[in-house]
């Protein structure tokens, strides 16, 4: 069996390795790379110019995994990077920027199953352009509880005059993205979502919890706002997750929220699912906010900051 192949992708030569190795018991590395190749037009807009943390599974999802932020040795010269300083490790750190198909294919070949981009672009590293309401159920709450809470979020967002863009986390949760106006800081973004969580909890305290301690969340959906802080990341739209069914963190429409299941979107059926979406439900997230909506978000942010000070 030919396991290593030299391929030419948009004029870049890439050596694909161990193509027949299973990354999931049921899928080989070739199938995994094929997924990211086909999904490239959908996923690249959400990765472009954003420093990314990779979660690599060189021996498949049942083997050892590790996080990778710094560019690996032998990174081709044509891969764009963002050199910065790691305050954590006190040494230089060169993030990868997945700005084109060859880079995405090369990164897939590293068995990087999960792609976690920053909420900001490297040009304005301290200004996120989206915030995420991260809904995470604690047992016995399940996905249908999350769906209820997501729809409650939608109601509240409508009331506040803000647009949310939902996607499946790929595990048991739902992520709702909000576009932020220019010049927002990471702290303001987290404060905004924290405040939103408090409003939400007031609407339905039986379903929603803001408890940091996991054991106090039992049976409720946790609204995590801290993922919006600097150096925190959330799995990219259309990224695969290293879970048994090979689920996709799939953007969905609001009308789908009521009936969708995480198993609806996996490596096995992505082809059909992607062609069902000629319009990417997330695409407007990258467009600038309308003036009215920007005013609404800034107003909400001002209330959040004020509330935070008391």
């Amino acid at each position, binding site marked *: 069996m030919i396991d290593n*192949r030299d*391929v030419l*992708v948009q004029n870049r*030569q890439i050596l694909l390795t161990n193509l027949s190795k299973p990354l999931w018991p049921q899928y080989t590395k070739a*199938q995994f790379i094929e997924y990211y190749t086909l999904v490239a037009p959908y996923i690249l807009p959400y990765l472009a110019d954003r420093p990314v943390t990779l979660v690599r599974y060189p021996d498949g999802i049942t083997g050892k995994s590790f996080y990778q932020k710094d560019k690996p040795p032998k990174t081709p010269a044509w891969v764009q990077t963002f050199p910065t300083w790691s305050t954590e490790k006190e040494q230089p750190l060169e993030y990868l920027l997945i700005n084109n198909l060859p880079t995405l294919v090369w990164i897939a070949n590293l068995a990087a199953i999960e792609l976690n981009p920053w909420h900001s672009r490297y040009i304005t590293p301290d200004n996120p352009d989206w915030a995420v309401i991260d809904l995470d159920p604690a047992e016995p709450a399940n996905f249908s509880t999350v769906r209820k809470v997501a729809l409650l979020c939608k109601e509240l967002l409508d009331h506040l005059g803000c647009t949310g863009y939902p996607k499946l986390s790929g595990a048991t949760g739902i992520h709702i993205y909000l576009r932020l106006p220019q010049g927002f800081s990471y702290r303001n973004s987290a404060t905004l979502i924290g405040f939103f969580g408090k409003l939400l909890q007031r609407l339905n305290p039986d379903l929603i919890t803001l408890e940091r301690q996991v054991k106090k969340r039992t049976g409720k959906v946790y609204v995590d706002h801290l993922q919006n802080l600097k150096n925190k990341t959330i799995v990219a739209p259309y990224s695969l997750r290293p879970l048994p069914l090979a689920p996709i963190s799939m953007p969905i429409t609001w009308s789908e929220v009521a009936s969708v299941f995480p198993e609806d979107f996996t490596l096995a059926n992505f082809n059909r699912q992607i062609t069902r979406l000629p319009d990417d439900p997330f695409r407007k997230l*990258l467009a600038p906010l309308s003036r009215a909506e920007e005013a609404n978000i800034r107003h909400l942010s001002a209330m959040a900051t004020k509330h935070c000070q008391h």
Partner: protein
Amino acid sequence: MRLFSAEQYQNIYQVGDSHMRTIWNGAISFGLVHIPIKLYPTTQEKSLKFNYLHKDCHSPLKYEKICPVCNREVSKDEIVWGYQYEPGKYVLLSAEDFENIPLETTKTIDIIDFVNLQEIDPVYFAKSYYLVPNQGGQKPYTLLRQAMQETGQIAIAKVVLRSKEALAAIRIYQNSVLMLETMYYPDEIKTLDQLPSIDYVSTIQEKELAMAVNLISNLSAPFEPAKYTDNYREALLELVRQKIDGEAIAVPAASGRAEVIDLMKALEESIKASAEQRESELVAP
């Protein structure tokens, strides 16, 4: 068959001999002095430009504006501007919309400090422009130039070019004209601590050092920029000239490269092979 017109032929021998165009009008301001100036580019890229021709008749290809939906060529007055804000979706802009946008208000080069040129490392310099006095600017321009000549200092200024506020230096070029050098901000320059470790220790023999020093002094010469030429462009030009003059051309053979195959083909082949292997494993006891 001549591939080039007489005019083009001429152009090949005098690549890029274009006249200078103003790229910016504004004013230098320092203290109470206000100097109206024009900005001209100082450099030009000199790579050769080629045209697409039809292989059979060598006619230059014509570009037509065709609407793919109506399937016909559209005339100038049928064209409007659209800004694509998401794939397939456009907002329309009229000529009026463009006129309503206020023009850049700050069109000044604000001098902040005067410093010595030697203090600035060349890494800071980005791009140069000639500064020429505009109407009414001749006297203050001459004054500034002479004062800078007298003191031997150069000016550090802030300038808004293409809606970006840039740092810049103003210096005297060839004793006659003021030149603006746009500069990088310090935080745009990558620092040494971002490099891989360079604090290794090597021991150098005295003899080796003497040899290297000797080599340098043998090669040392006054800087004559005209000596240096772009060999690739020269060779390409020479090839074009030979073609025009109908000479035979020797084409160097390209070096071999490893076998590369199409990405999707490689993946499909591997997926098929894995599936077949799995099947045979299922069949075998």
